């Protein structure tokens, strides 16, 4: 069912809603295509005409400057016309619904929606209700998925580690609320990473998380032992409600990434973070800025990976309009 949603009848990627259910070849194709866009930003003229004449709407029901900006840059480098919208959504039925907003914009001949919403499943809902020639990219839905972020993280890992099938990866922090972690876990599994660990206090590990194909740890030094990649997640204090963690100090003592804790990992371990980082809460400044950190590379790669995903999806679009 999920495959039906994301691939069209010819097996072309149609929407990009979640990593779950995607073929390994699709992920590799996205990474390979992104490779060809990576040197692009350094050119004199930073544009290719792949999406010329196409309209991309960044529909962000939930605010985000960073993600929206990288999508905007990516679309513009592909020569698309880009519109940014941040509609305020009322949670009552009195307000304009998500679908009403989408239908209105669709009537203005939008070709691609990049959607972010605070509720899990919003991108699916929209993808279910757009006509065949309109594509949807999920730019984050509630706690469910953030597939483009996961792909840029995979791209960054591949830049440094080349292969996935010999890696040991640890994801640290608020797994419970993290759409980034869920998408990363699917991507790492599909790409063949043999050992994926999630490290957090038990209050921040979702029930039956092992079913996603990960090994849960609550002890940082055990969890980080001999890992090749450490992905730190942002701790959103407003979600902690005073009962998920006891205090910022204790959290940092136990799960903050410091040089001491990093020493448990392999000597050439990568330190990653989807940003924005809370220095001194989930990661120490000297580690965030240190030699293991590839945090800024992630941001740069984000543009190339999003260009890749947009180009692949829109590449098959002409055919879908005819059928």
């Amino acid at each position: 069912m999920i495959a039906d949603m994301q691939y069209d009848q010819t097996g072309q990627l149609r929407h990009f809603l979640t990593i779950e259910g995607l073929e390994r070849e699709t992920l590799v194709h996205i990474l390979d295509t992104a490779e060809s866009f990576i040197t692009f930003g350094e050119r004199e003229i930073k544009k290719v005409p792949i999406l010329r004449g196409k309209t991309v709407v960044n529909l962000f029901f939930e605010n985000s400057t960073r993600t929206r900006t990288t999508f905007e840059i990516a679309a513009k480098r592909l020569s698309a016309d880009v519109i940014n919208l941040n509609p305020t959504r009322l949670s009552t039925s009195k307000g304009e619904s998500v679908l009403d907003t989408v239908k209105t914009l669709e009537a203005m001949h939008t070709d691609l929606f990049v959607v972010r919403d605070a509720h899990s499943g919003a991108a699916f809902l929209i993808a279910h209700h757009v006509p065949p020639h309109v594509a949807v990219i999920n730019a984050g839905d509630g706690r469910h998925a953030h597939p483009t972020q996961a792909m840029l993280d995979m791209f960054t890992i591949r830049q440094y580690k080349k292969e996935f099938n010999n890696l040991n990866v640890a994801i640290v922090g608020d797994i419970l609320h993290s759409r980034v972690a869920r998408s990363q876990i699917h991507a790492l599994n599909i790409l063949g990473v043999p050992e994926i660990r999630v490290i957090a206090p038990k209050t921040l590990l979702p029930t039956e998380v092992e079913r996603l194909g990960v090994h849960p740890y609550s002890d940082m030094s055990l969890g980080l032992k001999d890992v090749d990649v450490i992905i730190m997640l942002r701790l959103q204090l407003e979600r902690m409600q005073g009962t998920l963690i006891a205090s910022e100090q204790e959290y940092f003592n136990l799960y903050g990434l410091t040089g001491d804790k990093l020493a448990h990992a392999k000597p050439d371990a990568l330190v990653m973070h989807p940003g924005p980082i809370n220095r001194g809460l989930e990661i120490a400044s000297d580690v965030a800025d240190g030699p293991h950190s590839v945090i800024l590379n992630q941001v740069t790669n984000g543009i190339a990976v999003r260009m890749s995903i947009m180009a692949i999806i829109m590449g098959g679009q002409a055919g879908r309009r005819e059928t």
Partner: protein
Amino acid sequence: MGMVIRNGRVIDPAHNVDGNHNLYINDGFIAALDDPPEDFETDREIDANGLVVCPGLIDLRARLREPGQEYKATLDSELSAAVAGGITTLCIPPDTNPVIDTPAMAQMIQQRAWQIGKSFIHPLGALTQNLEGKTLTNMAGLDEAGCVGVSNALVAVKDTVVMRRAIQYASTFELTVFLHSHDPWLWGNGVVHEGEISTRLGLPAIPEAAETVGVARDLALIETTQAACHFNGLSTARAVDMVARAQREGLPVTTDVTAHHLHLTEHDIGFFNTLCHVAPPLRSQRDRDRLISGLKDGTITAICSDHQPHEPDAKLAPFSESEPGISGLETLLPLTIKLVIENVLTLSEAIALLTIKPAQILNIDSGHLGVGATADICIFDLESEWTFDRGKMLSRGKNNPFHNWPFRGRVTHTLIGGELAYTRQSENL
């Protein structure tokens, strides 16, 4: 007025009847089985050859949306759906708008249903005024006005003292308290079972403990008061075990299960299918297995629809923003028959769970075909195979997740007080 239903397979679990019989009805009441009473004049006949004739179904929990939410459904639309589903008696929770917390409201709703002249409605009165969990309602008055029990509907009575006194007060009038036992803090803003699916989809979860903590608290209060209580639609294996234990210890407690919890699990949510958004949530396979075994071991004594019709927009939203509930009147019988086909229940046991047993929970004289009983009768074709199409439902709410399911067994006639309230049109037979 004399009517005879000829040669049907009459199944009346209350009297251990299961065989081919003629059923005689006089002036709206069951007059005789097999041989007509003296001076019986046949004005009308129904040929039930090849059909099952059983008591009209009794649905323990159905929200008909009137008054207050007529944009979702009305008594007119939903009572038409009820008779099409073979349901002749409905018990409705008090969370209408306004709430059924006064005798006048209870009477008004019954009168409206009476005017429509289809299924009977038995309201539950509110346990506390406006369901606020603070002040008790005038339960003697509600009893007098026809309420078959009291309930705080889906709203938790957080204050344990209020809860204890409310069930004590209800037991003064021998009113059964219908409980939706849950811990409101553990329930939180959850929308799905806490487990694999909530983790995979990143949806706010309702842990098993939200139900077991609520049931444990209420059982402790029932133990000290010995008040008769009914647990509405349990969803977890552990809660069923707790109620089974309480029953063994002699506590006056009963429970039911919804038809959808017997057939669906959390996995049916797939990728955010809001038609499977129900409260309590669909749980794990283990929980579903225990609900089924609870029917067999006698812990659970009724299957209900927990009917909640919605307007389309209520389900066209991200999962956590969609409204919970299934429009289930028209799938109650076929889903129950499915358990017979799957060899979980005998046909007689299945019918008992939809008729005499819920009648006992409601403490009403209904759900059987004894001589002198009101002739509320459901006639259905057990062999009829059909595919369910939610677009063709008579309920105004089309929110039903069993679209395209193959079913066996279809209602052909529904009689209420000896009058034909529904006949399936021949082209659909």
